[in-house]
């Protein structure tokens, strides 16, 4: 880009005006600028310049501090992200295929208990239900092994009835 001193004003004006008008326009501009040159404004006060320079030093320091803070903040964010990712990865590796077990365990809990907010009562219910299930499981095992001495048909029927009852109670919550 041409600077002011290098540009040819007449050539520029001739793009829009005829040669004579262009010459006059250049003359008007030169005269106008001469008037401005003949009326210079006062120079800025030396104290003002000194004050601006000290403000600049402060602004530069402020800018450097901000840049440093930004770098520290970004590093901290990146470090935190790395730690979180590492923790998640380790967790995934350690637990491995245990997700299906957790899903199965959750599915065994009745909806009424799952959605209930009475935690103490629910815990007691769960404990008694678990105990009953364990009792039935051991009875069933004893029957299968023929430990009762009889053929076990009456006991099996009784157990079946109990199981149905427990199952109903269990899912009612």
């Amino acid at each position, binding site marked *: 880009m041409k600077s002011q001193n290098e*540009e040819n004003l007449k050539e520029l004006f001739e793009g829009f005006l005829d040669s004579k008008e262009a010459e006059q326009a250049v003359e008007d501009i030169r005269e106008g600028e001469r008037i401005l040159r003949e*009326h210079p404004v006062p120079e800025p006060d030396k104290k*003002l310049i000194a004050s601006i320079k000290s403000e600049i030093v402060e602004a530069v320091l402020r800018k450097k501090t901000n840049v440093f803070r930004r770098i520290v903040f970004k590093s901290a964010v990146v470090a935190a992200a790395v730690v979180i990712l590492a923790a998640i990865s380790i967790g995934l590796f350690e637990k491995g295929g245990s997700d299906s077990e957790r899903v199965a365990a959750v599915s065994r809990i009745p909806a009424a208990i799952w959605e209930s907010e009475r935690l103490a009562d629910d815990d007691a219910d769960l404990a008694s239900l678990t105990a009953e299930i364990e009792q039935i499981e051991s009875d069933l095992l004893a029957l299968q092994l023929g430990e009762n001495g009889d053929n076990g048909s009456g006991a099996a029927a009784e157990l079946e009835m109990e199981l149905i009852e427990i199952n109903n109670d269990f899912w009612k919550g």
Partner: protein
Amino acid sequence: MAKSEDLAQIIKGCKRGEAECFSRLVDMYSGRCYGYFFRLTGNSEVSDDLLSELFVKLVEKIGSFRGGSFEGWLFKIAANIFHDYLRDKQRQRKLVDGRKEQLELKLTGKDAKRADNEGLEKLQVQLDRLDAETRELIMLRFYSQASFKEMAAMRSEPIGTTLSKLHRGLKRLRELMEG
């Protein structure tokens, strides 16, 4: 050429955050920027404030200078600062009051200092009679020393428009000064 290479080195220093380089820019451009603000506001105190604001802003913005005419870039920031100043209604009112006061002082001849600088005052008074846009254009051209091509680019208008407006403005100023 050596001057522009020096300027390039100074700007590089500024981008590295060297306060000394900014100081050199202050020495190089404070006079012209002050003149620009002074002619547009007609008030030395306001010009002082705007000049300080300009150089502090320069520290913040130097990273965004991507080459080309440094003067053009600097005066674009100066023009934005002046526009922000004008948008401030309170300050605008102060400016109008200040100008009114200046004119009254001149008419009554109470200000000895101004009487000493009658030529300077006359120019300021005549500049105030031009419309704001023309006055700003004349000052931008005179103090930034930008070419018409640069000015047209700064103002985002065709070069013919810039040429025409400046020509009419300077011609009118000359008539006012000689009349």
